[in-house]
C-alpha cells in the first residue's frame, strides 16, 4: 500500500458543509422525491453503503484488502432469519441486536487469526472463511434449509410492517446516518490517525510502541459490526436469505462500490453504493448480457478512474469530503 494515491487532508471547507447538508436533506425527503420502487432501491443502496463502509474502513484506513466481509454480512442476515424461524422471535430490536452481536463475535474470533497476515494472504484467508461459511450454510440443512434458504416476508415495525417501504426506509436512514457519524468520528479520532500510520509504515510506528495487532484487530471488529448491521438490515429488503449471501461475489460488490465512488474520499463508498445499486438494477432489467456491460464498466474504472466518481467531482468542485 506504499504509493497510495493522493489523499487530501479531509479539510472541512465551507462548501463541503453545504454539500453534506444538502445530501442529508435529499435523503430525508427521498421517499417523496423518488416514490415507489425507487424508495426500495434507495433503502437497499443505503444498506449496501453501510456494507461498503465496512470494507473501506479496513482498506482505506488500515490498508488491508478483505475479500470476506460477506461472511459477517451473511451471518447477521442468517441469525435474523434463524431466530425468526426456529424461535419465532419477530421483534426487530432483539433480532437486529443479536444478529450484530453474533457477527461481531465472529469477526473478533476470525479477525484474531486474519490480522496476522497482510496483502494477498489476508485477502485469500478472508475469502476462504467466507466460502467455508457458505458451504456450512449448505450443509446444515436442518438448520438453514440449505440452498432453498429461509425467508421473512415482513416483520412488524412500529404501527405497520417492513413491507411498508417508506417507513422501513426511514429506519434504514436513521441507522445509516448514525453509522456515517460514527465512522466520521472514528476516522478523525486519535485511533483513526494511528491506524493510518500502521497502513503507511508499520515498522516505524511499531518501533514507537504501537501494538499493531491490537489496533488491526479492533478495526477488524468494528468493520465486522458494520457488516453485521448491514446484514441485519438487508433481511426485510431481500425477504429470502440463501447461502449465496455469504459468497465472495457479495464481498466483490462491496469492493466495486468503494472503487466506483472513489475509496480515498469519505463519501466514496456511499456514492458508489447508490450508483452501483441503480446501475445493476436497470442493467439486469434491460438486457440478458448484463455481465458483459458490468465487466466493461469495471475494467474501465480499474484503468481510468483511480479516484472514482467522487474524485472526478472533486476535480470540478473543490471541497467534496
Amino acid at each position, binding site marked *: 500500500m506504499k504509493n497510495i494515491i493522493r489523499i487530501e487532508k479531509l479539510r472541512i471547507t465551507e462548501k463541503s458543509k453545504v454539500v453534506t447538508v444538502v445530501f442529508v436533506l435529499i435523503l430525508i425527503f427521498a421517499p417523496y422525491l423518488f416514490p415507489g420502487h425507487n424508495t426500495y432501491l434507495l433503502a437497499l443502496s443505503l444498506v449496501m453503503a453501510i456494507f461498503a463502509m465496512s470494507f473501506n474502513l479496513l482498506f482505506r484506513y488500515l490498508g488491508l484488502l478483505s475479500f470476506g466481509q460477506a461472511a459477517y454480512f451473511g451471518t447477521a442476515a442468517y441469525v435474523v432469519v434463524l431466530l425468526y424461524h426456529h424461535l419465532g422471535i419477530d421483534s426487530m430490536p432483539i433480532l437486529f441486536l443479536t444478529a450484530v452481536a453474533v457477527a461481531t463475535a465472529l469477526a473478533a474470533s476470525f479477525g484474531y487469526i486474519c490480522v496476522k497476515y497482510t496483502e494477498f494472504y489476508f485477502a485469500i484467508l478472508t475469502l476462504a472463511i467466507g466460502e467455508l461459511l457458505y458451504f456450512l450454510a449448505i450443509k446444515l440443512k436442518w438448520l438453514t434449509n440449505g440452498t432453498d434458504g429461509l425467508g421473512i416476508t415482513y416483520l412488524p415495525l412500529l404501527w405497520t410492517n417492513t413491507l411498508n417501504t417508506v417507513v422501513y426506509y426511514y429506519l434504514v436512514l436513521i441507522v445509516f446516518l448514525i453509522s456515517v457519524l460514527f465512522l466520521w468520528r472514528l476516522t478523525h479520532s486519535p485511533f483513526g490517525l494511528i491506524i493510518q500510520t500502521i497502513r503507511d509504515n508499520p515498522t516505524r510506528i511499531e518501533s514507537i510502541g504501537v501494538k499493531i495487532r491490537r489496533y488491526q484487530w479492533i478495526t477488524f471488529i468494528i468493520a465486522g459490526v458494520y457488516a453485521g448491521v448491514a446484514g441485519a438490515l438487508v433481511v426485510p429488503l431481500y425477504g429470502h436469505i440463501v447461502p449465496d449471501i455469504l459468497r465472495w461475489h457479495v464481498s466483490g460488490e462491496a469492493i466495486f462500490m468503494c472503487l466506483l465512488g472513489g475509496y480515498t474520499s469519505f463519501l466514496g463508498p456511499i456514492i458508489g453504493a447508490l450508483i452501483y445499486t441503480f446501475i445493476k438494477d436497470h442493467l439486469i432489467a434491460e438486457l440478458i448480457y448484463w*455481465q458483459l456491460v458490468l465487466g466493461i464498466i469495471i475494467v474501465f474504472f480499474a484503468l481510468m478512474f483511480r479516484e472514482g466518481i467522487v474524485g472526478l467531482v472533486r476535480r470540478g468542485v473543490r471541497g467534496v469530503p
Partner: protein
Amino acid sequence: MLAYILNGIFFASILFLISAGLALTFGAMRILNIAHGSFFALGAYLGGTFVILVADTGVPVYMYLALLIPAVIVGIIGLGLEVSLFRPIYEREHVYQLLLTFGLVLIFEDIFRLIWGTTSYTAPQPYAYLGTIKILGFEYPIYAFLVIGTGLLALIFLTYLLGKTKTGKIIRVVTENRFMAASLGVNTKKVFSLVFLIGAVLAGLGGSITIPMLVALPGLAVEMVILAFAVIIVSGLKSIPGVFLTSLIMGILRSFGVVFFPELVLFIIYLVVIIVFIFRPRGLFG
C-alpha cells in the same frame, strides 16, 4: 484402493495444470489474476470446438493435435490482454489489478455464453476413442493417463525452464525481488509478458486437455481459479515442484475423502487452506 490413488492423481494433475500457471504469474508479478480461470475455461471451450471440427475427419490423431491448438490461442489472447490492460497498472495498488481481472472474468463469462451458449459444452470423442483398460479388476479410462501425463510434462517443462535455462533464472530473480531485478537492468516488462504468456498457455492447455472428461459450463472459470488460489496458498510460492506436491496431496486427500469422510468433501480444500494458515503461514513448501 489403487483406484482411489489413481483418481487422486487424475484430479491432482488438473489442479496442477490450473495452479502452475497462476503460481508463476502470481509469484513473479504479484498479481491476483482471477481471469486465469477464464483462460482455463476458454481453453476448454476452444478445445471442444476444435475436436468437434476435426472429429468427423475420422483420423483419430488429429483429435489429439486439435487439443493443443487452444493452448496457443489462449496464450496469444493472454499476451494481448497483458500488454494492453495489465501493463499500465503494474505500479498501482493490487486492488486495481484484482478489479481489472474481476471485470475480465465477467466479460469472458458472457462471451462464452454468446458463442457457446449455456448448455454444458463438451467433446467426448478423444476420451471415448481411447476406451478403458482393466487394472487389478477395475476398469479405468486410458484418457485419464493422458491427462496425468500432460500434468507431468508441464511439471518437467517448468522445472527445466526455471532451473536450467537463462530466462528461467531471470524469472526467478524477478520473483524474488522485481525492484532489485529492475535495478540490475532486467527488462521486467518483457519478463512479465513472458511469464503471463506461459501462464495463459498452461491454463489453456489445462482447459483443453480436460474438456473431453469434463464439461464447460458458466461459472467454470471462477470455480477453477478458487481451487488454484487454494493450492498456491497452501504450497507457499517458493517452488513449482512444491505446487505439484500440494496438488497431489489435495487430490489424494479429496479422493479418499469421498470414502472416509464424505460429509467433509465439500469443505476439504477450504479447511486445508485455513489449517495451513494457522499452523504454517509460509505454506507447506514456503
